[in-house]
């Protein structure tokens, strides 16, 4: 499908100047999002872009969409309310690994099982940047940070396996090492009719380790397409996802070839069905008349 000529990537870029450190991976991610939005071609005012708290959660403000920079860990509940209140909107959610898999870690499973048509982009940098470099839920075991001076004793969350295991219909991974690929993956995620998850390995230039910077990531990156991976094969996807942390597989891990009906589509049907013959709102108290 070709992009409408009406919108270009720059139409989604706002005037706000990012507070991110120079060299931050998130600069590329926002570019990828501009490109994906342009490819989709929805006007900015029909897009709601929701985030939590963290460096990466500043991202909605750098777009011209309706943005909501909410509270720590709660981008997904708020995004759900928006989508259910107005299913016509294109709803994007974004945040960091701490936001999505630590403080807000309880929400993603429920969004997945509800299958609400929201695309969730996690900028995974394996560290808490905004609060100056504490251990995050995706930090590798043994990592030394200011809250793990003798090395972390915890295993990291695997965001890919986590979302695949809960049954997400679309799971992909991208990285600023390949912006063209990242834009295409985000576009595909948005087009997927249902909940879609994109883990973006986006390095922290200030608190990240050397191996986690772009050059280090390039060295461990492998394209799923080049590996001949079939995105309809969920078990193969889970197998590959186990390498999170040691390899960086880029591309679509899993895309349900037969997407089931979304929650938001079903509530519409219910609204239409039940509104027939309903009491007018002004007479709702008639429900309490006892004969």
């Amino acid at each position: 499908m070709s992009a409408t000529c009406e919108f270009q990537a720059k139409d989604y870029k706002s005037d706000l100047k990012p507070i991110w450190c120079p060299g931050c991976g998130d600069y590329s991610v926002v570019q990828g999002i501009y490109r994906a939005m342009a490819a989709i071609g929805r006007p900015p005012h029909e897009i709601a872009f929701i985030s939590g708290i963290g460096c990466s959660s500043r991202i909605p403000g750098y777009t011209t969409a309706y943005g909501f920079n909410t509270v720590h860990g709660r981008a997904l509940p708020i995004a759900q309310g928006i989508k259910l209140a107005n299913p016509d909107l294109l709803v994007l959610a974004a945040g960091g690994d701490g936001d999505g898999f630590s403080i807000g870690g309880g929400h993603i499973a429920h969004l997945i099982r509800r299958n609400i048509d929201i695309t969730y982009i996690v900028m995974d940098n394996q560290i808490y940047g905004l609060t100056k470099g504490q251990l995050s839920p995706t930090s590798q075991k043994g990592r030394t940070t200011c809250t793990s001076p003798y090395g972390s004793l915890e295993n990291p969350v695997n965001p890919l396996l986590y979302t695949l295991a809960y049954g997400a219909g679309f799971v992909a991974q991208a990285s600023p090492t390949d912006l063209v690929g990242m834009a295409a993956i985000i576009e595909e995620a948005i087009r997927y009719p249902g909940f879609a998850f994109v883990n973006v390995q986006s390095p922290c230039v200030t608190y990240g380790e050397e191996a986690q910077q772009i050059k280090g990531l390039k060295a461990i990156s492998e394209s799923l397409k080049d590996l001949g991976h079939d995105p309809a094969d969920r078990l193969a996807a889970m197998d590959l996802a186990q390498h999170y942390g040691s390899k960086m597989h880029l591309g679509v891990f899993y895309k349900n070839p037969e997407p089931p009906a979304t929650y938001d589509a079903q509530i519409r049907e219910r609204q239409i069905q039940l509104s027939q013959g309903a009491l007018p709102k002004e007479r709702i108290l008639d429900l309490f008349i006892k004969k």
Partner: protein
Amino acid sequence: MRKDLVFGMAGSGGDGIVSAGDSLLQAASAEGYHGVMTKSFGSQIRGGESSCRVRISTDPVLNPGGNLDVAVALNWEDFLKFGAELPVAGTTVVIYEAATGVPENQIPLVGVTPLQVIAVPIAAMAKETAGTERAKNTVVLGLIAGWFGIGAVAVMKGISRKLAKKSQELVEANQKAFDAGMAFAKEHPLKADMTIVPSEGKGGVKLLTDGNDMCAAAAIFAGCQFFGGYPITPSTEIMQFFTNHVWKYGGAVLQAEDEIAGIGAAVGASFAGKKAMTATSGPGLSLKSEMMGLASIAELPLVIVDVQRGGPSTGLPTKTEQSDLFAAAFSAHGDVIRPVLAPTSVADTFRTTIEAFNIAEYYQTPVIILSDQEIASRKETLDPIDTSQFKIINRLAPTGSDLQDYKRFKQTENHISPISHPGMLGGTYLASGIEHVESGAPTNSGSVHARMNDKRIKKFDPLKERKDLFEITGNPNAPLALVAWGSVAGVCREALQMAREQGLDVKLMVPYLLYPVAEQTYRDFFASVQKGLVVEQSHLAQTFKVLRMHLDLPKGLQSLARSGANPFLPGEIVVALHHLLSELQRSHEGKLQPQE
């Protein structure tokens, strides 16, 4: 003959005493009486002790009443567990299960000699007539019909309607049990005539519902199209009502994974331009407080219902208390005003809920409705409400020229800025929990923060001037006064009537708006007051303290406060007023007759 009867009945869950109360209230309502029913339970899901109070009257009922006129104990152990919730006095007729084996002159009620005590072989009668002891509650209804003249026809009509779908046999069995109860009553007349005065067709169509259903219905009437919440006693019925009905009006419900997600989804729906609501009880309110802060700074309309129960923590989940006022007014961080409203009855829950939405929408703010377990779960008969008299307010939409250069948080004369929502062309902006300039762009400037705080706080000034959110009754210049809100207000209304009948010069203030404190309205009210009581079910006397924080209270104003689940009786408040009066008279006497 009596114009007003208060029944208190207790048994174990298996005795079906609450369901009997339901049938009694419905029958009375069908016969044209006014009524209120409250329920109280032990902590077991099934099979614990359960009780209900049913008050039936020829006049509108202000509260569940004081001492019982009729006490029904299916067993004493369960009855006694409710203590002060079911107070027996010298005017009470006590009916109890003969199978308990307790002689009539040895019932386990300390310090009181009831008007009459009657042991009835209720279980035996049920077994004999219906073939099962389970029909005990129907026997009780028959006894009540026989002795007090309520529901002789209507009770069985209601039961038949309820059971007709199941089997005719079941209806007949119940009829026999009911008739047996009626017959027993006729054979054993009471010492005093306690039959109720005929309702004389005062009835007409009546509504019968509880506070939670009324709250949800009012929200839908006010245009609420989204509910996000999580089950918690005693508020859950609000979510249940929404799931049954809101779809019909183009709305949606999300039973969320937790309290935070519930209010989060509601915040999202409000951002998307829809009126939204969540409901909870104390522990849930604590979890939601961060989101309330977000809604305040993002200036998003939202209604949060807190059906109060005994706290802190799980506390007394099935009993009422008024101890969440501090939490409602002060729980979220930061300098912020969040309006807090409280209904006082099922009937005015309708108006209060609509008012909450109107205030939320007009001022673009979260608003808390502080209901309580008693109002939420008590059933009331009400006269039909003319819904056309209620005005519905919607949030201020941006005009074409506003959208030319849209500033979401534009400084205006009344501090209220036009609000757009996703989907509106020209209205895009960044909503955020971070401090922001007029456009919505984040800032960490101290001066902007001060200006924005000013905007967000001053916008509420007109709310504090609203006299219609206060009910003042009695002589405006009275030296004696009562202040009460929520379910306690109903008790004080009755106490006021009684006190005035006894010649006391007393007035009553019932605030529906608890926060922000309307200083001037209180000052005007307290101007004539020399002695008074702030009556509340809060051990810490939270209302009294919130008032003292904002006002110089009259010296003679005292707190009458106690923990929840220990109801106030109108009579004891009247006694307290008499005490205040004597104090007042003594102090005047002192002034007139100098000490030797």
